[in-house]
């Protein structure tokens, strides 16, 4: 059984406690318009093309589908023609063309995660992120189980949108949840992420009964969810949870835009969504006043 992994990043320090190795899984049920890891949305394989790494050697022209064209010293990647055969990826000497993900076994992933055992100490370990790790539910759970068996602490960053039948298993092998709450308004949630938030909240409340530690990660998108109603609902959610250690506010940023370039050849930055520093502080104070522990 192989897992689609876009990246395994060692020495991560803010994806759960201690030094952690974060495994990014491919595929997500949501289509958040502000997504900063767009390469993890589609479950299927994709190819990154980094124009700045291309040395115009034309090795990729051997593409049998004619997906790579060179005109006037410009390299055009015609994605429509691409059948993901990977010939161009192997031919490219500078790694300007690369597969987004790799199919890896639980053992292969753990082998990399274990490389940093000496640095995990009491708190650190493995974090599953993505994408939504639970888009590959059985596989994600197997991986978590294997990590626990190997004595490695586990954290899962989830959007919460997955089938509740996996909840028990997921909770039994997860030490820390980083649970994204994109929005508390049902309509907005649907509009900006493509799905409503019923399942997400239901899963959260169900998980809360059995999970040991949950942190809510809440994105702040200026003019979308930066309002009192949202913060009040957030605070109410926080207060109704027994295992929640705190709320982490994550202001929208345009960091993901370079990855849209690699995937689609165009940027996707919405500067008007960046919240003002003063508003971030306001939101922090508001939530704190409502009795939340803002991290």
């Amino acid at each position, binding site marked *: 059984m192989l897992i689609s992994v876009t990246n395994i*990043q060692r020495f991560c320090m803010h*994806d759960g406690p201690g*030094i952690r190795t974060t495994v990014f899984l491919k595929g997500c049920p949501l289509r958040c318009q502000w997504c900063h890891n767009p390469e993890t949305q589609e479950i299927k394989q994709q190819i990154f093309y980094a124009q700045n790494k291309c*040395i115009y050697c034309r090795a990729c022209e051997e593409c049998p589908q004619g997906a790579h064209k060179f005109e006037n010293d410009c390299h055009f990647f015609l994605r429509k023609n691409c059948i993901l055969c990977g010939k161009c990826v192997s031919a490219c000497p500078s790694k300007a063309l690369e597969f987004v993900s790799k199919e890896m076994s639980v053992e292969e992933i753990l082998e990399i995660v274990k490389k940093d055992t000496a*640095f995990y100490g009491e708190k650190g370990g493995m974090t599953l992120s993505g994408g939504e790790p639970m888009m590959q539910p059985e596989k994600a759970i197997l991986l978590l189980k294997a990590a626990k068996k190997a004595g490695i602490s586990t954290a899962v960053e989830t959007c919460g949108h997955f089938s509740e039948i996996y909840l028990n298993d997921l909770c039994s092998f997860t030490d820390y949840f980083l649970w994204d709450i994109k929005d508390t308004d049902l309509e907005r949630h649907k509009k900006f992420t493509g799905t409503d938030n019923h399942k997400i909240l239901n899963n959260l409340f169900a998980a809360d009964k059995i999970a040991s530690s949950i942190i809510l990660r809440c994105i702040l998108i200026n003019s979308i969810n930066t309002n009192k109603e949202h913060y009040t609902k957030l605070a109410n959610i926080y207060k109704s949870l027994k295992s929640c250690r705190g709320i982490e506010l994550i202001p929208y940023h345009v960091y993901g835009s*370079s990855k849209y370039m690699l995937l689609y050849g165009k940027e996707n*930055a919405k500067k008007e969504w960046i919240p003002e520093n003063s508003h971030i502080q306001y939101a922090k104070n508001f939530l704190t006043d409502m009795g939340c522990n803002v991290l």
Partner: protein
Amino acid sequence: MEFEFYSASDTKRPIRLCDSTRKFSYESLNHKYGKDTRKNPAVSLDLDNIKNIDSFSDLEKYNAGILVIAKNAPLRVCPNELICGAATLGNAINHMLPVEYHGKPLFESYSGISHLTPNYTEILKIGYRGLREKIKLSLGKNISQKQKLFLQSCLHCVDCFEIWHKRYLNKLQNMPGYENQYKNLCVVPEYPATCFYEAVQSLWFTFAFMRLTGNWPGIGRIDVILGEYLKNDLEKGLLTISQAREILAHFFIKGCEWICGGDYGSGDAQHYQNIVLSGIDSEGNDVTNEVTFLVLDIVEELGISDFPITVRINKNTDKKLLRRIAQVIRHGGGVIAVYNEDIVIKALTDFGYPLSEARNFANDGCWEVQIPGKTNFSYIPFDSLAILQKNTLNNYLIDTDIKSFKELYGKYIHNLSEELDLIYKKFVEPLFISGDNSEWKEMFPCTIVSLFEHDCIERGLSYREGGPVYNIISPHIGGISDVANSLYAIKKLVFDEKKLSFKDFMKVLYDNWEGNEPLRQYVLSSYNYYGNDNDEVDYIAADILSDFSDICSKYNSITPIKFPSGVSTFGRQIEWAPNRIATPSGRKKGEILSGNFSPTPGTDKEGATAIIKSYCKADLSKQVTGAALDIGLLPYNVRGEDGLDAIISLISGFVTLGGYFMQIDISDPKILHDAQLHPENYPTLSVRVSGWNARFVTLNREWQNMIIEKSAGKL
């Protein structure tokens, strides 16, 4: 008054010291007091009206020089300083005896001693009066004429120390506000120190005199040297911990003297001597004491990166100490480094030092390890990449054909061995009378440091002529990461993947990769080089180091000089760059490559933990005098409690895995600016953006600027 000391962290530096100490520090860090050394490069023997200098022996000239310094070197007493004495002559900074005769330096060439850490404990315990007695005792023995002249020079130098000392006493006697300083100097360094304040004064005064006379000594284990004095004072209620902090702070402030206030080659510091903290004593007991924590308090508050600190860590180091170290490291400046003393002590005992000596190791003022107060130490740096390029691969010129990786590796080790033989012949053999490997030749005089090194006085031999208990010349291999990367690239490309023949590859390299950009890109992007926790290349580096160490060990029993191996470049990768040609790992002629035993810039893609793992695969206990690793982190990596945990985890992992010496720097915005200009050199520089980490170079310009501004303290 407010004095702000720069921090890379958004956690504020604590304030514990009084305003006048903070002011003194602020002024010193802004080079208020050191610049006068440039105005006074030397004193002149003409002042002593010496005529027939040509008839003087070197030792007589040296004696006359020390006297004229003691009598005439400018005295400096800074406003509000608690500790007195200063090295005020500029030529001393250039390793020279700062004495002129008829307008020319008394000795044209190098005449000072550096890379030693003297025995300060003795002068604190017996004073220079005690030294005099020791010298007289040796003079009373049945000794040669040469020994007699040396010991007479010792007595003369103690007299000179006294002359300089008494000049300060005279100056301070009538200075209002310096009553305590005067009182201390009435006792030390002439008599044994009786309290902490006197001990600090004696330590500084002795250091400053050595420095004034052109030497560059280290300090060593300051908490061991001073710990007992403080303990006694605290127990007797003679001193509070805050008072002790103020006194010790002045020692550090005086140590961070800046000499020209501008760019000056490798730096602008006059003293630049590492200080060692914590660790175990000769019986194996933890020495950590109040002084240890006071030093950390002081550098945390004042941001003094000179003297820099190295802390001896082992598997049992107290969590409280680790946490304090992490808190100080977080402010940036690379102010604290760590030794893994488990490995260092193993290295020293494996090499043959008695365990009790090994346990007392310190550094030489830099990070090379030695037994303080007992070691004549020097190191010989060499470029191991040049050996590969010039000797093994003949500058890619001659039609060499190598059939296998084994053959290539064997040839390289053979060439390395030849180079070491040359080094030994050039630097060690000439120190002895020819045909005799135990009789030292007469060397340049160095009486001042000999006073403070066992067993110079007992043996009647100077520091340079076999006086110290241990005599070490350590060959230091540099460029090792690039040798490993080069061999690895050849192995992969030619012997494993067979992409092209050995000869064809040599032609590509001879052409400096011209016309072969796709191949160069392939070599750069397809292989995981040293620093990425890739066994295949890491063990090439490890094997070379092991073989290097074995070769060196052959030379240990020939003369009284031992020849232990070590790894370093310090900054030499910069000066070596123009002489280096293309590397098989994809670098072009003249690039600046790896420093110390760190990865080559731009090749480390997996982050700090992978770098430490690569480094620790070598058996570092074979690198007796040290092997340094540099780790760079961003202020955002180490923010908050998580950040402290991260630093502690990195250090703990480093110890568990068998590291030797590591310096962690929290980079400042200058580095980030450079990363904007040369992103290819900083692939793993990761930043905390908000609720997550991102690699700095993958951020767009706007975000990069934002983070630069934030890390510069909200410019």
